[in-house]
């Protein structure tokens, strides 16, 4: 069955979304045509490079999205979709796709040393193992072309500085160049050669890939350019052998066999080459999270504090923000505009800098807080003072936001409700508790829940202020102010390179926790029921 509102709002027959009885506003029509024209123009603009580069899948998506846009905006039906579609497209591309990417990553060992394909790793291994053939010459190089500088066959004009002899290097090999064929500079570098055009840096640069790719085979390796004015005879020490699926070192004979379960080339002793590749590891990252003794040992206390932190920040910022919003929400108050403008200043300042300023204010010996109040507290040395400190900092950073939205939301509460309460003899406190606050809560519950979720994962709030301090001396991994995300960060990025796969797995766990708590929160505040 069609949706009731569709029928009520849109009528049944397609009429290009326009009402038929002559009530169509020409402005609206022109706007619609213009917007769709722009959409079409953008689509066409976007399509040409896609066709050029033969990216058919993306082209299909582009066409599909364009058709969808036209269908939705030309049809008189699906009115809600007309309003939701643009934002939703952006949401999908820039929020949901990264989330999906993260989720897929959780099943791989993606991270430093495991970013690319096995082919990439082989290329990197071989490139890194190219060494100058012992005793070989470092040639002075001139890049030249056979004929036209832009299209002619490339060749290296080489001079061995030790002997002063010059050679022509091509993919076919090295040939001697007799002295009368070439002109040389004082240092011996060839500046001109018969039949060849010497390339300038710019000309060579324009064919950079070809220059880098040219290798002149020799008996013991190949001569490759090192830049545009030198060349050396080198050979890769390590080469991939598809037969054994391993990398073999030409001089030592050591072999490293590919191990596709870890994405490394591993030798007999279990040592691996530095360059690895990305492999699917199934549920291993999840299993690691669940079975890691360190994680298991400190998870619960971190989770508890994580909740306390997120709830604490939301509760404190909301309470203070609301208090200030109500205090300043009076027509009798002079200077309220000034108050308001200055109170939101902390929100306008770069948070990173301000977090660092606060961190320094808590410094035991030099911090303003200890000095101002004559204290000698090592704020980040004790679990509870550290927790207090990070909460205070977040209160400072966040209450302005709550102040702002509360100020806005207070405007939406009908005045007569509180007036009625005061006529009924209610004290202001009661009127607030019974009327204003519940109404505000209904309006702001989604915000509070989202603020909870944000603070649950508020990495910089902890990382830049307390860094998780204090840490128990016997466990440098889990600090008293660590929340899951800072803790995960330390675990995933504190090793020999970032482990994105592992971080992604933890992200999924964290997400599940926050999502469940948030949905329960919705149930409790009935915010979801309100949306009916």
């Amino acid at each position, binding site marked *: 069955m069609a949706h009731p509102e569709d029928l009520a709002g849109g009528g049944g027959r397609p009429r290009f979304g326009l009402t038929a009885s002559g009530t169509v506003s020409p402005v609206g029509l022109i706007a619609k045509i213009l917007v769709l024209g722009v959409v079409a123009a953008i689509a066409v603009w976007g399509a040409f490079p896609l066709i050029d580069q033969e990216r058919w899948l993306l082209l299909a998506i582009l066409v599909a999205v364009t058709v969808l846009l036209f269908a939705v905006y030309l049809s008189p039906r699906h009115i809600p979709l007309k309003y939701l579609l643009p934002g939703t497209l952006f949401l999908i591309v820039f929020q949901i796709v990264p989330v999906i990417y993260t989720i897929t990553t959780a099943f791989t060992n993606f991270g430093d040393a495991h970013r690319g394909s096995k082919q990439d790793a082989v290329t990197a291994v071989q490139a890194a193992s190219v060494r100058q053939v012992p005793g070989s010459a470092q040639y002075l190089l001139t890049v030249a072309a056979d004929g036209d500088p832009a299209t002619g066959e490339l060749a290296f004009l080489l001079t061995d500085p030790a002997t002063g002899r010059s050679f022509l290097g091509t993919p076919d090999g090295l040939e001697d160049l007799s002295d009368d064929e070439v002109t040389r500079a004082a240092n011996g570098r060839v500046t001109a050669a018969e039949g060849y055009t010497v390339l300038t840096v710019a000309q060579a640069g324009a064919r950079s890939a070809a220059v880098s790719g040219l290798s002149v085979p020799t008996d013991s390796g190949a001569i490759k350019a090192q830049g545009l004015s030198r060349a050396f005879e080198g050979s890769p020490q390590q080469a991939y052998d598809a037969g054994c699926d391993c990398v073999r070192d030409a001089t030592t004979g050591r072999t490293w066999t590919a191990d596709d379960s870890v994405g490394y080339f591993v030798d007999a002793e279990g040592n691996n080459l530095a360059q690895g590749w990305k492999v699917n590891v199934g549920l291993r990252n999840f299993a690691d999270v669940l079975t890691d003794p360190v994680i298991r040992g400190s998870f619960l206390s971190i989770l508890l504090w994580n909740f306390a932190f997120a709830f604490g920040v939301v509760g404190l910022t909301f309470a203070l923000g609301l208090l200030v919003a109500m*205090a300043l929400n*009076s027509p009798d108050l002079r200077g309220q505009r000034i108050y308001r403008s200055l109170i939101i200043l902390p929100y306008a300042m770069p948070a990173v800098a301000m977090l660092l300023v606060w961190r320094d204010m808590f410094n035991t010996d030099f911090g303003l807080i200890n000095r101002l109040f004559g204290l000698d507290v090592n704020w980040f040395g004790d679990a509870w003072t550290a927790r207090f400190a990070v909460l205070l900092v977040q209160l400072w950073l966040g209450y302005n936001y709550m102040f702002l939205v509360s*100020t806005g939301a207070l405007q939406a509460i009908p005045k007569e409700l509180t007036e009625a309460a005061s006529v009924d003899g209610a004290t202001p406190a009661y009127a607030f508790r019974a009327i204003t606050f519940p109404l505000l809560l209904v309006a702001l519950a989604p915000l509070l829940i989202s603020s909870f979720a944000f603070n649950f*994962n508020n990495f910089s709030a902890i990382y830049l202020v307390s860094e998780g301090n204090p840490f128990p001396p016997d466990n440098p991994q889990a600090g008293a102010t660590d929340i899951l995300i800072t803790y995960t960060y330390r675990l995933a990025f504190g090793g020999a390179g970032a482990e994105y796969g592992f971080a992604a797995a933890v992200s999924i766990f964290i997400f599940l926790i926050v999502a469940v708590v948030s949905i329960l929160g919705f149930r409790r505040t009935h915010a979801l029921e*309100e949306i009916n």
Partner: protein
Amino acid sequence: MATTTSPAPAAAEVPAAPARSAGRRGGWFRRVGWRHLVGVLALAFSLFPILFVVSAALNPLGTLSSSELIPSGAGTENFRRLFSDTSFGTWFLNSMIIGLLAAGLSMFLSATAAYAFSRYRFRGRRPGLLGILLVQMFPQFLAIVALYLMFSTVSDIWPAIGFNTRWGILLLYLGGALGVNTWLMKGFFDTIPTELDESAKVDGASHTQIFFGIILPLVAPILAVTGLLGFIASVNEFLIASVFLTDDPSKTAAVGLYGLVSAERNNNFGVFAAGSLLLAVPTVLLFQFLQRYIVGGLTAGAVKG
């Protein structure tokens, strides 16, 4: 409700205590005095860490020293360096363009979505609303990597919206348009009587006429709030921007300023502080401008009769 002709925007204030004996000190305090007290305390709390930034901006040595509020010397050296040694002017302009466009467009996208969620009942409405919120809860560990890979493809195909372009970063910021602001707006939209829409509908107005002509002006306060929040967010955003905008002329002020202190904080902190202060000025001005919409707005005198 006794409708007065005064458009005083005092909705939902806590009714002042009945003791209206004007002139008595206690009365004054209970009426406005406590408000000033709260305001002044809040101001003090808000501003004193910022004083350090001011102090560092004026301190020619430009070190971040939280132990002293009063710099040993004061001068405009840091401001001068900000403009002579860096491209702050360009950065600032970029920030304003991106900030205003991102704030305006995402406010608009958010408002359209909120309108649909508030006024229409359709399949997927509840999951949609919940989904919008849940997406924001996913830890953003890998978002930058994912976005980077995505935009590297985009840059190859459409350099005009790729890395180092305002359009690219703007599009990216619009990805956050449907978020908590949609909820905030939806709540506000819900308070507007549906009779207004219905009456217009019966009169033959199209849904767009209703949305633009009636609903949007009525939600001006929340548009102003979300617009301001969006502006602040995109002006101060640097995590993603610093990855996307690497070309000096394309940088936003947040990225440029962050670059000044990321390598060696002390060397440039004064310049950084000066830049941060300048960057906060438009926000405060914008807020000044928007206040009249936020408080009272066009609904002065109440919507409901």
